[in-house]
């Protein structure tokens, strides 16, 4: 049965689809034919504008400009394309026999990027991507004018990843804006971008970004290879690729990380990772992903290191509490009551007296209720959502206790879980599942059940890899040198080396430092040179 399922899954996953047929026809020299062909290809779309014009004095010629309304910058087209075409061809400069298209590109058109294209297919593609097409009667080539320009969202702080200190800009939906933001962070010639189009119908621009000289070349190749294998109809968000290229697509744990913050991406590139930008989404994937990355917040580096270390510990603690507290409570209260301090036991005993369900069921039930409230709170409009959360938490919890449906301790544990889960948002998904599994195991076999669950999770985690890097490193396999940014957050001057498992081609980040001496600054100077 499993095998059947597995085969089914694999088929679904790997079935090769044929790419949609693309026309490889050449353009015809006849303008009318070309226009008809394009009209036929795009249907009677009202946003396709065809502007026929006669070239200004100097060179005789009839032509047509084509563009999609809304994808181009009106001002650019009017001022820098149409106006020069109508007026700009000066007699004398242009001799008969010159290539008119070349002449136009070199002397007339005031746009940044001009390309010649003899084929029909790419012309249509360029049109759909927001370029303006110049077709001339009698020429079997078209000029593609880069006049892209559409409404963009302004840069603002990502909602999902708030920080207190540090830069507050976030990526937008526009690919170019995003890469530019990264360039602004890293002014290094080694910052390379590679673009490819993915998605047969969406033709989404996907950019691989990496820092040459820091990154492991094999990693880039692997990313390239995996992206090439992506065979999708549509790529609407970073997650579309995410699920396709991750090492363990069925694992609960994310082996590709994502962020909306340029500073985060910059930091990760500088550690030797590769970033994958997807056009149309502010979310940027980075690989390889490590388990411990989920516990690092950009704010860790914006605050003094002792405070950051402290907060990081609490993040670890919160995650384990969030995942384990219901299970531990169930195990303690139904199997290992001897471990509960006597006075506490009596209190809990009094509080749970008369509740109808077994504790494990109670726990799972309240967990489900909590998840529903949370989901409702997210989906609804913001003011209403908040009301839902408060009403849900207070009223349902209170009512359930008063009615004797569940014990008060259950509510307390669920609430603890609820709060602690949000501390590590990256692991929200795995957290929910693990919590449920552990709770059930605890209900069946007590602490032993939890141990079994933990061992299974451990085995799974250590066998995971993300683009060749062990997912649980540097914890297992241990690489003690990396603990400086995992167990603690060492002072910036002590973070002299990149994570060993990722940035090994060029491990040293800066002179491996001692506290910078504050007095003369000599030492610091010398180090800067080195």
């Amino acid at each position: 049965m499993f095998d059947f399922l597995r085969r089914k899954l694999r088929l679904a996953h790997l079935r090769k689809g044929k790419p949609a047929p693309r026309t490889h026809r050449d353009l015809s020299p006849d303008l009318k034919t070309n226009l008809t062909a394009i009209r036929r290809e795009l249907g009677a779309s009202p946003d396709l504008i065809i502007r026929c014009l006669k070239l200004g004095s100097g060179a005789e010629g009839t032509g047509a400009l084509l563009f999609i309304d809304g994808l181009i910058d009106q001002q650019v087209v009017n001022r820098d394309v149409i106006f020069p075409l109508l007026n700009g061809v000066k007699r004398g400069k242009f001799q008969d026999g010159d290539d008119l298209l070349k002449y136009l590109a070199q002397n007339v058109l005031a746009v940044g990027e001009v390309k010649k294209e003899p084929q029909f297919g790419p012309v249509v593609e360029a049109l759909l991507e927001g370029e303006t097409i110049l077709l001339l009667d009698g020429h079997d080539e078209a000029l593609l004018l880069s006049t892209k320009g559409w409404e963009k969202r302004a840069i603002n702080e990502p909602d999902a990843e708030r920080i207190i200190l540090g830069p507050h800009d976030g990526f937008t939906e526009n690919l170019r804006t995003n890469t530019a933001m990264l360039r602004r962070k890293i002014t290094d010639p080694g910052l390379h971008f590679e673009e490819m189009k993915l998605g047969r119908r969406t033709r989404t621009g996907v950019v691989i970004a990496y820092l040459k000289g820091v990154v492991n070349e094999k990693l880039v190749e692997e990313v390239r290879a995996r992206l090439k294998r992506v065979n999708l109809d549509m790529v609407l968000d970073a997650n579309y690729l995410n699920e396709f290229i991750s090492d363990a697509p069925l694992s609960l744990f994310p082996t590709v990380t994502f962020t909306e913050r340029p500073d985060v991406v910059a930091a990760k590139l500088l550690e030797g990772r590769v970033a994958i930008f997807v056009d149309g989404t502010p979310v940027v994937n980075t690989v390889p992903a490590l388990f411990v990355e989920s516990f690092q917040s950009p704010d860790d580096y914006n605050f003094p290191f002792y405070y950051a270390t402290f907060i990081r510990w609490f993040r670890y603690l919160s995650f384990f509490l969030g995942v384990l507290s219901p299970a531990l409570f169930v195990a303690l209260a139904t199997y290992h009551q001897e471990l509960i301090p006597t006075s506490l036991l009596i209190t809990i005993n009094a509080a749970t007296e008369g509740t109808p369900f077994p504790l494990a069921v109670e726990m799972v039930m309240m967990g489900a209720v909590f998840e529903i409230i949370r989901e409702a709170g997210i989906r609804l409009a913001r003011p209403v959502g908040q009301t839902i959360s408060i009403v849900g938490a207070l009223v349902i919890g209170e009512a359930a206790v008063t009615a004797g449906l569940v014990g008060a301790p259950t509510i307390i544990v669920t609430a603890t879980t609820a709060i602690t889960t949000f501390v590590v948002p990256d692991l929200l998904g795995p957290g929910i599942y693990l919590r449920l599994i552990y709770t059930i195991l605890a209900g069946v076999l007590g602490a032993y059940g939890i141990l079994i669950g933990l061992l299974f999770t451990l085995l799974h985690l250590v066998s995971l890899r993300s683009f060749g890097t062990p997912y649980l490193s540097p914890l297992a396999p241990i690489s003690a040198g990396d603990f400086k940014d995992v167990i603690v957050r060492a002072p910036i001057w002590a973070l002299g080396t990149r994570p060993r498992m990722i940035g090994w081609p060029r491990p040293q980040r800066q002179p491996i430092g001692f506290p910078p001496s504050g007095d003369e600054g000599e030492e610091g100077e010398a180090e800067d040179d080195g």
Partner: protein
Amino acid sequence: MDQGKISAGQLTLLIMSFTIGSWVVLPTGIQAWQNLWLIMFMGLGTGLLFAYLSLFLFRRFPGKTLFEIHERVYGPVLGKFISLCFLWFFLQTGGGTLAIFKTLLRSTVFTATPDLAILVPLILILVYGCRRGIEVIARSNQLLIMSTVGLVLVSILLVVNIFNPENLLPFFNLPFSEVIWTSISLAVFPFGQNVLFMMILPRVNRWQKVNGAVLKGMIGAGLVLSTIQFLAVGVLGKSGQILVFPTYEFYRMINIAQFLTRLELIPLLNFLTMGFIKTILCLYALAVGTAQVFNLRTYRPLALPFGLFLLLVAERIFPSISEHMRYLEEVQTFFGLIFSLLLPMMTLGIALLRGLPRRRMAP
């Protein structure tokens, strides 16, 4: 075959876990109670001697598992037979470990739970882990052994208020012959069972570092075991001698401000992870060994049936815990000596006599 490679450091930690494995729960040599923690070091010394005999053999055949060495030294038929004997030894070691932990769980926390309910989930993750290969085992072990060592260190703090150094007296009130006997029995169990690592050594990425790793691992394990025993004696005094699981039970006495009490569940689970590593290594050795005996290309499909065998053995190895203790006291030493000392020594002797290996494998 498994292509995974482990580092010498990981080997050290694996050896630690494996050695701590089941002894930590069911110690032998209880008659030497107060001095056991000292005799442990004598046992460690003897055990190291045994281990280095086997290592000598390994260094003559680097990159070969014990079974491959057997075939080289004894020829295919006799070699396979001796390998099969070793398979039996591994099966018994693994099954015995499972049996110990099953008994421990059943006589402390899960008195009413049937054996199968305890064993089956454990077997399942054992098989799961075994199929993932030695790399995964070694990595997960890194975290598990850390937590165990951490626990031992913490427990030193926890028992400070109930630790009575007087309980450690008198030193060496035993007749000398009994000291020797106890140290030999300790050398065989827990240290001698490390002969199983002859199946795993070829998976170490730098075989030159193996000697140091084994030394460090066994000394580390000796220190941990000795510390636990030391604490148990100091806390329990003589009354530990009548307990079945003294090394674990001294945690029951911990009482910090009337609040932290009955903490024994934590060491119980922690020691269980050590037993888990021990059993998973036995299972791995079984599967890989069988695959080598039958010249198979992969050991993975064998993990499941051998997991099942471990289950059966754990069920039918001892009629009761007292029989088990008797076995450990009386039989284990002889039985273990054959496998951890005599057979490797014989193999080494014959290899030397026959001048094997003919050409030096590596500088």
